[in-house]
């Protein structure tokens, strides 16, 4: 810096000297100034030009637009600038510099949002070295799923190639598993992937293992609530003691307790809890608990939701359903109890979202939603449950989850119904960037297609 100033001051000093010598006048100052500006401009022009370039414009033209929040547009255009959708409608003016993607015959949807996955936390489930979503011990509020995230997991490109653009990545196990993060399925480093962290604190109630063999005793559900209440109280008092010590130097300052520290946002009602709860009795007790403790909460799993749908609706709690590949545990509930569950919840006015609850099968998200439609869920509700609903539940409803002006350009273009199995994803955009749809599957496929060509 000093050098530059020195360098700059030399001509000024010479000019000053000249002025003193009555050899230069104001005109010379101005002239020098202009020359200087011109030189600067030469230096900085490329940078400025680039700045303009960082906001590329893409126009997706002629597709059927399923906005989710509004009615479908049979043929329309989406205009993307930078990361955002800047315009959308049946007739949109496309600026000349826009890259146009001809999308006649295709359907555009908002990119799907998966309510709970283990993407990046698990590569091969039986190889423990690759599994990082289940910490040991019962109480682990301090762990963050994004801090175990492996951005180049093969499962991420495979999943996005089926239309998912964002996913919740969550820990599991124990009573309090840790904190989850919402990621976009594109990025080189964990920081690039993470959109929001923490999203929720995860708490587990026991699931009745299925296949009609066990009776549905709510296995020590109330014991867990007691334990949670105790912990939350401990956290509150931990904070109170700290505050007191801050005010009064004579009082001992409590040691840092990572677990209680992590619970503070929860007890203050700032960080929501996502409680995995399944049995009817447990659900009722959890609702009571959440209201008593004044927590922000999201329910997960909720197999017996259809039995207590009204109560869940009254409590205003959203539900993220677990994988519809799980089976009902009581014969009496009927073989399709879990399939019918989403429709029953929606009918009672509960906001639902779907989740794949997987890493290697996260791509199946839309097909869980379709299965619920097969058993009574309204088609539009099913679509909402994989787009705008999870966005809103995770507090990002103003940024994603629908095709709307001002939202992030997370868009998937398919040659058919997004929730159908027999269709293909043709284009995928995450935050305005078109994503290469090749993945581990296609790599291996091409490799061995080559073998066939050899003789």
């Amino acid at each position, binding site marked *: 810096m000093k050098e530059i100033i020195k360098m700059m001051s030399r001509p000024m000093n010479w000019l000053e000297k000249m002025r003193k010598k009555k050899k230069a006048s104001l005109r010379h100052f101005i002239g020098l100034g202009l020359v200087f500006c011109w030189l600067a401009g030469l230096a900085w022009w490329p940078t400025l030009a680039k700045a303009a370039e960082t906001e590329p414009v893409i126009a997706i033209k002629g597709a059927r637009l399923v906005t989710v929040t509004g009615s479908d547009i049979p043929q329309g255009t989406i205009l993307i600038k930078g990361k955002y959708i800047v315009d959308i409608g049946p007739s949109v003016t496309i600026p000349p510099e826009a890259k146009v993607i001809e999308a006649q015959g295709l359907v555009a949807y908002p990119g799907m949002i998966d309510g709970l996955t283990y993407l990046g936390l698990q590569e091969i*489930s039986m190889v423990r070295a690759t599994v990082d979503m289940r910490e040991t011990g019962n109480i682990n509020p301090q762990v963050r799923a994004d801090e175990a995230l492996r951005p180049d997991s093969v*499962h991420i490109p495979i999943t996005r190639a089926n239309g998912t653009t964002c996913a919740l990545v969550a820990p599991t196990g124990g009573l309090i598993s840790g904190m989850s993060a919402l990621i976009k399925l594109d990025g080189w480093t964990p920081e690039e992937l993470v959109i929001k962290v923490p999203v929720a604190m995860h708490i587990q109630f026991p699931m009745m293992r299925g296949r009609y063999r066990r009776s549905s005793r709510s296995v020590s559900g109330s014991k867990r609530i007691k334990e949670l209440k105790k912990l939350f109280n401990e956290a509150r008092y931990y904070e109170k003691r700290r505050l007191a010590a801050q005010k009064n130097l004579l009082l001992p300052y409590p040691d840092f307790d990572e677990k209680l520290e992590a619970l503070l946002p929860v007890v203050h009602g700032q960080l929501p809890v996502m409680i995995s709860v399944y049995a009817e009795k447990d659900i009722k007790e959890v609702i009571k608990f959440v209201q008593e403790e004044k927590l922000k909460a999201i329910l997960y799993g909720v197999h017996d939701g259809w039995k207590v749908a009204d109560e869940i609706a009254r409590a205003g709690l959203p539900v993220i359903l677990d994988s519809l590949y799980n089976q009902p545990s009581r014969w*009496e509930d009927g073989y399709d109890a879990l399939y019918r569950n989403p429709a029953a919840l929606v009918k009672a006015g509960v906001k639902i979202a779907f989740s794949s609850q997987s890493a290697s099968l996260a791509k199946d998200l839309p097909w869980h939603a379709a299965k619920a439609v*097969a058993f009574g869920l309204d088609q539009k509700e099913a679509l909402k449950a994989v787009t705008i609903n999870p966005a809103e539940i995770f507090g990002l409803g103003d940024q994603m989850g629908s095709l709307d002006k001002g939202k992030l350009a997370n868009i998937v273009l398919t040659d058919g119904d997004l929730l159908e199995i027999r269709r293909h994803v043709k284009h995928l955009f995450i935050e305005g960037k078109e994503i290469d749809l090749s993945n581990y599957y*296609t790599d291996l496929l091409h490799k061995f297609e080559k073998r*066939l060509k050899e003789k």
Partner: protein
Amino acid sequence: MKWRKFVGLILAMVWLGLSPLGAGQDLFIKNGTLLTITQGIIHGGDILIIDGKIKEIGQNLTPPKGIRVIDATGKYVMPGIIDSHTHVALSGTNEASVAISSEVRMKDVINPEDPAIFTALTGGVTMVHTMHGSANPIGGENVVLKMKWGKSSEEMYVPYAYRTLKFALGENPKRANMMGFSAQPRYPQTRMGVIAIIRREFAKARSYMREWERYNQLKKNKKLVSFILPPRRNLRLEPLVLMLQGKMVARCHTYQADETLEFIKLSKEFGFKIGAFEHAWEAYKIVKELAAEKIGISVFADNWAYKMEAYQGIAYMAGFCAKHGVLVSINSDSGERIRRLFNDAAKTMRYGDLSEDEALKLITINPAIQLGVQKRVGSLEVGKDADIAIFNKHPLSAYTRCEMTIIEGEVYFDRAKYLEEQQKKAAAKKPHKKGGQK
């Protein structure tokens, strides 16, 4: 007086013969979209079923008087789905205490009360190949069953299928993923040990066969008969002898392409037949060899990455192999996935670009051919068993559900009836619910 009883008996028999659900095996399916598999699609099609067999298929058929009519208007009618790799309806899956357990038979441990049978029916599955597990290099004899929920195990048993013996290669038989090893690990612990132990057993079987041949020869000599002892019957080697004689085929669980090829080599060494490879997640790497040897595979649509050897299993595989001359069937190997085999078949249209016809074959005629039952089931054809599944939407749509499953003309799953029963149960419970019952 006696004649009255006699007449009564005849009338009763006649009535039973004509009565709908239960005793009757006559059925008339009306006005559905028939996905015959082997003879195209018939819109507005009818199927006449007499005595459990498809008697006629066509349009605008006239049903005989008194027959139960199932209105399939707006619905899709396909052959009952065949799941060629499961472990349902068995009391026990593995005899894992020893590496070679070819003496065990799934036929001895059929469990007709397994609720998974009902689960299968709700997924349109009418027949399964239920097998020994993959804990052993040589497992045991498998069995083919029809999912006749509520009937006896004998009525479920399918005697005309190929006799199959379960083999397993790779991580499972070498116990790679067992938590908690005991002090004495079981041989074999490597892939080469697995191949070696199978080779050893076939060699033993050859010797055993030879022992019997020599005994039979000696028996012919009257002078020696009295003191010639027959060999001790060895039930462990006898199924392998049957394989050497071509009377039983191998169904081999395999993952990596290399071990698959090794097993093919073994089969040539001893001259036995391979019915199909199970799972075979790397089959796409060796389509050349599989097509040349005409060996089929029975695989998942996309259930992968649960163990190391399943890590290179790509969802494109089933479609890719099917397109390159390999006979492919899709299986569930699970009491849960068995209810969505039609969804799995649809996945080959998304990954693999199979047509609707090709995709449907993977769960109907292809597994039938692999099990040797294609003359009786696997398609809607006159003369075949009336094993039928009816869906409310096209079976390959993600929005479909199975409405009715029929085996030999008898309705074993009826969703409408099921919903009625559920409603009745709910109505009966309502007054109690207020009392705070669970």
